[in-house]
């Protein structure tokens, strides 16, 4: 499985422990916690395997990959996908 970015341009503002993200393609402003923001940031420059995203996100949070709960990670990915900010695909999709 890979995670692919779908929003080409995002505008970020970090305040306190929250990230405000403006998505020009939908004219929406999102408010994310650090986990969601890091997932998005990890794929800004291109698609990555889900496991790599999780590992990078955990490391950025100061955790081991196993310490970042799958439920929290999966929930964040699902929500980001619902918002049209990323797509979940297989390796073949990423190559295309």
């Amino acid at each position, binding site marked *: 499985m890979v995670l692919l970015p779908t929003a080409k341009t995002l505008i970020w503002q970090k305040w306190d422990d929250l990230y405000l993200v403006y998505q020009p393609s939908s004219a929406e402003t999102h*408010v994310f916690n650090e986990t969601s923001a890091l997932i998005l940031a990890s794929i800004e420059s291109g698609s990555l395997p889900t496991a790599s995203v999780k590992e990078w996100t955990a490391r950025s949070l100061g955790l081991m990959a196993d310490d970042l709960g799958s439920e929290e990670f999966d929930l964040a990915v699902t929500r980001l996908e619902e918002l049209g900010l990323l797509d979940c695909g297989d390796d073949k999709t990423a190559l295309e």
Partner: protein
Amino acid sequence: MIIGDLDQREFTERLSGVGLCIQFGPFNLRIHSDLPAFSRVAYPLYSPYPQPQPNQLIDFHIQITSPPSMRRWVRRQACFALDGHFPFAPYAVDHAFPALEWGINWCIATRAHHLLMLHAAAVERNGQAILFPASPGDGKSTLCTALIHSGWRLLSDEFGLVRPEDGRLLPLPRVIPLKNQSIEVIRQFRPNAVMGPSFLGTRKGTVAHVQPPVESIRRSQECAQARWLIFPRWIADAPLSLTPIVKSQAFLLVATNAFNYDVLDQTSFRLVTQMVHDCECFTLIYSNLDEAIAALDQLNPTRPHSSKPSSIDSE
């Protein structure tokens, strides 16, 4: 020229004839009315306001008049219209003045999308402004009225108008509609405040309008920089509390109190982000106006601030 350069008779003739042109901050209006009840109330309250130059464009052509049909002979009513369209049900004729004022709010909120419009009061001193974004019933108008009779200049009671080019606040110093208990509170607080009659039983309860100090109206073309974002709330008998809040919370409170945040897309995000970055942000809980004003008077206007928010732009 100001409206007060006309006498009451000329004022009434303009209203019922070619229309009365009046300038409220960045907006020029032409008002028609055939209602003596409206003219009597409007003349003293509108007297200090400027008349636009004859060559200036009129933004809103509005009227508060008798019903156009046979209904005028059955019930005495007042109908608000913009460009000949009647967006609201008729009002009791005695409520013509508040009806027109609400109608002007509607015109601005639904048309002035060249500006970011925050639902906020705003006052200024020494070129720096406090914005009070608030929901109805939070005591925004009462506090604003008390402040402008205590040395602060009125920018606006209802609309925080933000100019996209530079993020500065445009004044819109219109009459302030006080509701219900606030009317008596201000009468006690500043007995010399110029206040129109109380309108009983309107759609918003009892309403009376306070005329801003003439100085605020005279300076209605002088912009100001937002320096403080303060979210007020009046709570009976509560001790005064002016508490800093985090920027992310302030952003959400400002954005959700805007009339047209969604309309202006990325411009709104940029303007609100910049404003929150540049401002100190507080919640204010108060029950006593003197205490609240003393606390706001002590805000330090000299703290410098940088001009760019620390955003991460992924473009």
